[in-house]
């Protein structure tokens, strides 16, 4: 079976831990517990009849990506960069962060995820945010109601098989 390391990153409070728990255990909590250090868990997904084991790393959020210990990223096949659709400060500097991440892991797949979609009233507001950003957003999720969370990781697993 194919095994791949995937790391969740982004500013604090954007919902990394929530996405982690939604994907791994299919649970959600409104309580905000700051992540200290790292947590690793695994989930096996199936794409096109093949199993892929995703070792998912959840780390403490930092406002800027160069504050995250580099060693956490090393060896990862993909980076899931999460921002909070309701807080512009979490996506304003996204292109700077992308440069930092591409510098650390030039070969990794990077997925840009806008989270907390359930808090945005309508589709057009989301489209407006997407247009504002200089980088393309890969997927809009809600860890709370689970929208697109599974798909995000299935997509990644599919990419790994290519």
């Amino acid at each position, binding site marked *: 079976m194919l*095994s791949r390391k995937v790391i969740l990153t982004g500013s604090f409070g954007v919902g990394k831990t929530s996405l982690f728990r939604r994907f791994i255990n299919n649970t959600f909590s409104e309580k905000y517990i700051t992540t200290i250090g*790292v947590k*690793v*868990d695994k989930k096996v997904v199936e794409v096109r009849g093949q199993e892929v084991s995703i070792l998912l790393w959840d780390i403490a959020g930092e406002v800027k990506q160069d504050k995250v*210990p580099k*060693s956490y990223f090393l*060896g990862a096949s993909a980076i899931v960069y999460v921002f909070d659709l309701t807080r512009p400060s979490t996506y304003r500097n996204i292109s700077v962060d992308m440069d930092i991440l591409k510098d650390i892991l030039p070969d990794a797949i990077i997925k840009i995820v806008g989270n907390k979609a359930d808090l945005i009233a309508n589709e057009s507001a989301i489209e407006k945010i997407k247009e504002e950003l200089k980088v393309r957003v890969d997927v809009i999720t809600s860890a709370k109601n689970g929208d697109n969370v599974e798909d995000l990781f299935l997509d990644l697993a599919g990419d790994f098989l290519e």
Partner: protein
Amino acid sequence: MRFQYGMPHYLIILSTSLPYNMVATSDKKQDKELLNQLQTILLKDDRATIERLQATIDDPVLLSEKVSPIIEDRMAFFKEQFPVEFRVTVDKLIERKLKASQAEILDVIYPVMGKMIKKYVNHQIQIVKDSIDERVKDTFSSRGLFWRLKNSIFGISASDQIIHEMRDYKIEEIYIIQRDSGLLFGSASTENTIDQDVIAGMLTAIKSFVEDAFKREREDLEMIQYGTYKILLQNFYTYYIAIAISGSMSSTEREELGNELLTFADDNLKTLPAEPDEPSFKAVSAKLKEEFIK
């Protein structure tokens, strides 16, 4: 080809350039005879030379007599000239090769280097220990009686006693883990631990966290302890080995286990794939089980 002295050149030109169809048939045989004779006269010396050469080539002993000095000569020349003419090329080649397969080469070198360094350090320590023993013997010879008395009460020698006390550790689990990703190259354990790859990932995360948080110049986390469990970590280049141990372990035993790991790595882990895959996982795991989990 050499010509017999005084033999005119044109004779040959004549006989070879004269087309057959211009000669009468009856003369043909005669001509041939003539030509043969001519050849014999002309080539007598050369024939002898060729025969001698043939003999030399056919006879291995004779041949080697002739050829060996030449080869040796060339070899000597080559040895001398090689560094001059090819050094730059060879240097470049090696450099390129090293760059291309740095990880593999280091994985091959690491265990060997580890062993060499350990051997050296052990040797130095032994020298110090010996000199201390010598001094202790001199200084505390009056105490000898006390020690011997104590040993005779317990019925065993003090060193045996100490060794016995130490020897009750057990290897519970062993993991070969890719250094940065935390993915498993192989594992074995006494019990059926379910999520070994999660443990491997977590260990790697802890390792990264600790090594980063208490950053000192190139120092690695070597042990994690919780309760009666110890997890020993030994670093190689593209991977590290983690061993969970229960019971107590002396520093000598730790040292011995470290050596065992180096040997194991040298024997079994030099050909790890760049990315963990199932066949190599199975092979490595089986080997681990055989060596460390009895």
